[in-house]
């Protein structure tokens, strides 16, 4: 099937070969002459044909950035490689080669037509990213596992498939199997699929297909749920109050706190903890809701601001366009008048007039732009003030709520200390009824130990609360600075761009006029 190496020397894709191919396949006749004059850049080539070249290795194709169609059929290629940069590829022909595995196609997301006819492929695989695939040709290969075809179900656009000449085609239910499992297919092995046969196949494999579908649905649902959760978290992160809608913070306080956990074995501490947790979670929820509300407010503020900015810019653009249109109308008339004029002094006079017009246009446009810059500057400043105020209020309130948390913690600490000392006294007196684990009992040796333990637990808790608060405050402050910076930066870029545009335009106009002058003088 495949040609032998020793029949002909394998060739390498080099510059000469590529140039030759590009020249040959490029424009012909008059256009071809022009092309020869100028030369063709590889990145402008849309289609390339490299068949029957005895190529062994795909290489040196990275320059063809915009290539859409690539034909490498009838070579002796063994591996699919070197195609990573050709992301615009729509059609790829690798038929009649010696490829054994499908690989290296992950970046070709636009691929619609893939031919791997007459190779040595034994398994359909690694095509996941080719979501637009419509035509897949895999005939004359070594595919032997029927179940491998279920892999093709993921390609929603796949309409044409050819598998003839594979070992699986000898299986009795091969066609029925494909009809049933790939119901969107229109052509199989170069033949249109009969609707009736499709129905029959569907009935035949009904059971297994339903099961498969069910599994797929479940997977899909799960993926969706996960995505929704992720989105939610993302949203909360934007509001800087992630994980505050529950006992997460409280739990994290006790996660690294061994002493605190030990102390919970003391009588009465459990109840105390319960109450403490409830109150703490309520405050957390308050912070959470407040954060969401504030986020909404900030969003509305930002949206209004953006809308107004856009409106103002748009209006300014319209004015500019109008001015230019008016100018162009006049300018065209003037130019044609100059062209028709024969008297040199009048021509010169008119040309001067024209250049005055251009200058005036430049001034008008620049005035418009400066005006806009001033207006926007003012608005941006107002917005900046407002958003900083908003953030400030938010931080203040959150800090207040956090202080409540700390109060709760202090209160809890005092209570715990009291209980601990009581327990210590009881232990020392030997009046304690309950059994305590040994590790807990070890704390109750003297007053210092127990006070230290309780204090350590308290410190950990406070640290956690502080950390969370810091995180929030830093987060929102950074966001705010970034936002304001970005707005200023964008405005500056916009202004630069516009000024450049105006300059470019007037320069062009002026040079056109100069050319005319020049031409006239020659005449």
């Amino acid at each position, binding site marked *: 099937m495949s040609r032998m190496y020793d029949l002909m020397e394998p060739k390498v894709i080099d510059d000469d070969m590529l140039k030759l191919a590009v020249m040959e396949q490029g*424009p012909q006749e*008059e*256009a071809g*002459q*022009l*092309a020869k*004059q*100028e030369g*063709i850049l590889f990145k*402008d080539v849309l289609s390339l044909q490299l068949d029957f070249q005895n190529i062994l290795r795909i290489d040196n194709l990275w320059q063809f950035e915009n290539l859409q169609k690539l034909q490498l059929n009838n070579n002796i290629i063994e591996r699919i490689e070197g195609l990573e940069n050709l992301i615009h590829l729509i059609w790829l022909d690798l038929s009649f080669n010696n490829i054994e595995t499908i690989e290296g196609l992950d970046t070709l997301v636009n691929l619609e037509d893939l031919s791997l006819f007459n190779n040595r492929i034994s398994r359909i695989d690694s095509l996941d990213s080719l979501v637009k695939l419509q035509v897949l040709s895999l005939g004359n290969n070594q595919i032997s596992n029927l179940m491998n075809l279920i892999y093709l179900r993921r390609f929603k656009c796949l309409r044409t498939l050819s598998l003839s000449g594979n070992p699986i085609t000898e299986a009795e239910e091969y066609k029925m199997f494909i009809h049933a499992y790939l119901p969107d297919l229109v052509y199989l092995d170069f033949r249109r699929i009969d609707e009736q046969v499709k129905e029959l196949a569907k009935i035949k494999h009904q059971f297994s297909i339903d099961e498969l579908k069910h599994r797929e649905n479940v997977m899909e649902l799960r993926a969706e749920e996960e995505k929704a959760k992720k989105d939610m978290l993302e949203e909360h992160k934007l509001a800087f109050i992630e994980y505050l809608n529950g006992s997460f913070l409280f739990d994290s306080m006790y996660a690294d706190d061994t002493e605190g956990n030990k102390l919970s074995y003391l009588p009465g501490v459990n109840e105390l903890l319960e109450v403490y947790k409830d109150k703490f979670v309520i405050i957390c929820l308050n912070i959470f809701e407040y954060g969401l509300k504030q986020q909404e407010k900030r969003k509305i*503020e930002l949206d*209004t*601001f953006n*809308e*107004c*900015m856009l*409106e*103002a*810019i748009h209006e300014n*653009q319209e004015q*500019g*366009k109008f001015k*230019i249109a008016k100018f162009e109308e006049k300018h065209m008339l003037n130019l044609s008048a100059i062209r028709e004029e024969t008297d040199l002094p009048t021509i010169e006079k008119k040309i001067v007039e024209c250049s005055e017009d251009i200058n005036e246009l430049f001034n008008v*446009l620049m005035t418009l732009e400066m*005006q806009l810059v001033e*207006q*926007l500057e*003012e*608005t941006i400043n*107002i*917005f900046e003030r407002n958003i900083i105020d908003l953030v400030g209020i938010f931080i203040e309130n959150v800090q207040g709520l956090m202080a409540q948390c700390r109060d709760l913690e202090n209160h809890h600490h005092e209570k715990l200390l009291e209980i601990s000392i009581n327990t210590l006294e009881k232990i020392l007196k030997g009046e304690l009824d309950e059994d305590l684990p040994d590790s807990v009992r070890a704390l109750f040796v003297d007053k210092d130990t127990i006070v230290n333990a309780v204090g350590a637990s308290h410190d950990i808790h406070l640290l956690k609360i502080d950390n969370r608060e810091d995180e929030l405050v830093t987060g929102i402050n950074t966001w705010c600075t970034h936002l304001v910076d970005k707005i200023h930066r964008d405005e500056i870029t*916009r202004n630069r*761009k*516009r000024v450049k*545009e*105006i300059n*470019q*335009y007037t320069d*062009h106009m002026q040079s*056109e006029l100069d050319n005319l002058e020049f031409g006239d003088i020659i005449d």
Partner: protein
Amino acid sequence: MEVLKEKVEEEEAAEREEAAERAERAKMEKMMRPGEPRRDESFMTQEMLRDLEKKVSEIVIPSVEEPLILTQDLIDTSNLPPSYKSNSTKEEHLLQVADNYSHQYSHLCPDRVPLFLYPLNECNVPKFVSTTIRPTLMPYPELYNWDTCAQFVSDFLTMVLLPDPLKPPSHLYSSTTVLRYQKGNSFDFSMLLCSMLIGAGYDAYCVNGYGSQDLCHMDLSREVCPLTMKPKEIIKSEEKQPPKKYAIKPPRDLNSKFEQDQELKKQLQLKAEEEKRRREEEEKLLEEEKEKPDPLHGLRVHCWVLVLSGKREVPESFFIDPLTGRSYPTQDDHFLGIESLWNHRNYWINMQDCWNCCKDLIFDLGDPVKWEYMLPGPEKHRLALSEEDDETLNDEDDVEDLEKEDEEKSFDMPSSWVMQIQISPEAFETRCPNGKKVIQYKKAQVEKWAPYLNNNGLMCRLTTYQDLECTKILEIKEWYQNREDMLELKHMNKTTGLCIDYFKPGHPQALRVHSYKSMQPEMDRVMEFYESARVDGLIKREETPKTMTEYYTGRSDFLSYRHINFGPRVKKPTQCTAESNPRPIVKITECFHRNPEKSADEDVAERVFLINEERIQLRYHCREDHITTSKREFLRRTEVDSKGNKVIMTPDMCISFEVEPMEHTKKLLYQYETMMQLKAAEKVSRHQAWESELEVLEILKLREEEDEEHALTISIYDTKRNEKSREYREAMERVLHEEHLRQVETQLDYLAPFLAQLPPGEKLTRWQAIRLKDECLSDFKQRLIDKANLIQARFEKETQELQKKQQWYQENQVTLTPEDEDLYLSYCSQAMFRIRILEQRLNRHKELAPLKYLALEEKLYKDPRLMDLVKVYA
């Protein structure tokens, strides 16, 4: 309340005496009003006839001036039902009540004119006006709403003036009679309209009152035609949105406020002056238009319809003038006063002062101070305002109410004596008498026709004039219907000569509006199209002698506009038509919408082909955040270089300005390819322009043909007009008829003549039956033989004649002229034909006769009358 109580008491007293007084009063009345005798008899007496004659002579005199008048002798009373010719006892009773009411009224208000209570009907029988109203719901949906219903009544009837403009008519005909003759005075109009409106659920009343001269004479020449009135433009109250929080501040205004103020003041002054001048002019015009003072102002009797609010979602009470079908607010100047009003249930007298026309009248019929009712019926018209001080009297009132309710039963208005109002579909469609109606408005004239009356489908024509005397035509609007070319409205402006045709969807060329001054091609014209019906999405095509502009929408190539400039036509020696010698195209400008799939720098916005200069200009779309657009200009002149080679492409053949310079567009190859494409595009555009011209010619030709032909379409549901369906139906009927005949034939009784010979009513004996059968068979056999003989005899006769002729021919063969010979030959062939046919018939008869005989025998065997008897015998 006092008045009411008094009145009730009076009524009761009057009623008690009524029976006794009745006969006497009747006599008295006869003496008092010999002109309007009351008749209770249902048959015509000698006296009646005399009266009738007298009356007729009375009426005929004014009718000399008004030939349209509907006099009584024109009405055929012979076919009218008895309810028209006599009064039932209940109606008699009602008349007595009415009479009493009238007496009391004239006693209380001696200075007011007598009431219009029971005029005579077409059979000279007095009928109470309320019973003349026959509430009917018409089967036409168009008559369900008051406006269309009133319009119908006004169209359907021809107006006849009242015999005496100062008095209500002495006769009030039933609506059925009025409908039959399609003529009537304002009272007839009102009664008919009121019947229909009440039937449709409106709270409608007939009003007897006084109207202006214009109203009474149905003179609309001082009214503005409703068709000329433009629908009031709904002024969009543009809600100014509050400025957004971050809206930018406008730049500081550096103009002088003082100067602006001065300017404004000056303008205001100018405007005021102009306003003043205009007002003066208007006043002058109004003066001219003002009617001559009417000597009978305020005395002219008129009858119209009042619709009260409440039912059928009528928000406010209003009047309808039945003669014109227009509605007026109750404060309108045309209505000068109200005497009384009635519906099918009751009768009310207006007790309010009409010094200020009807403007101050309050239509709360439950208020006995303002409206004196005749029957204390179970109306809901209670006093709207319940006064506080009435509370003490409440108990008494309750008792009275109870009593009243008792009485109500006996006082119920009898049902109408008029037959159900019917309008045939044909009459409904024809609408106006003879299908045509002309109305004169102020500076306008409206002519209406029934559908299919005019063979060009003309339905309505509005002629607007410049002056009040209607001599100078300003414009003509013609409405068409059922036209095959879907022409709906033709608008001709006589001053500018501009014609605008409006079409309904469905024209073969999808034409929507066509405005033109002349039907010649290459003139000023605008054609608008139903763009969804056209493949090319053309909306509008404007033409002037030198240009053609086309507007497109929804095209896949995003073309939105094409403007073509034509140069002067090149003279050709041969005949010059637009088709064979199109005008040279000088310039084609095409505009495109933004194609969202392309980037702005590659999406052409405007393409100009300067064909004479061999230049192509391109302007691209503007990028989102830019104000300048890319441009490109190609010189497609092909040049030859010094060596004589063709220059393919040089950089100076393409001048371009790019907003953001790109690398690939600088290449000659790119420019060359673009130019090639443009060349092809130019060819296509020129072809399009040529095709457009051809299309215009074609449309013009088609329009001319259509105007000449003016074929009308007939709906497939229109069974009367649709030829095909009528033929089909007639064929069906014929088939049915034939089927019926055949059935009759099969049921023909062979035995009947023989059974008739037997004594009737007796049962057949067996012997009789057998004889009967034999007789029948032998008779049939005889008939068959007779028939055979007859055919034989004819055959022989023909043969003999032929032989004779042949003989004669052989004898005279030598002397015959060719004509005679021809004659002879044709005779021979005809005779031979006849003989052959006779022969065939004879043979056929011979074949069929035994079969027929057997069939009859069989049938007789099976005959139920003979079966039993004959079977036993058999």
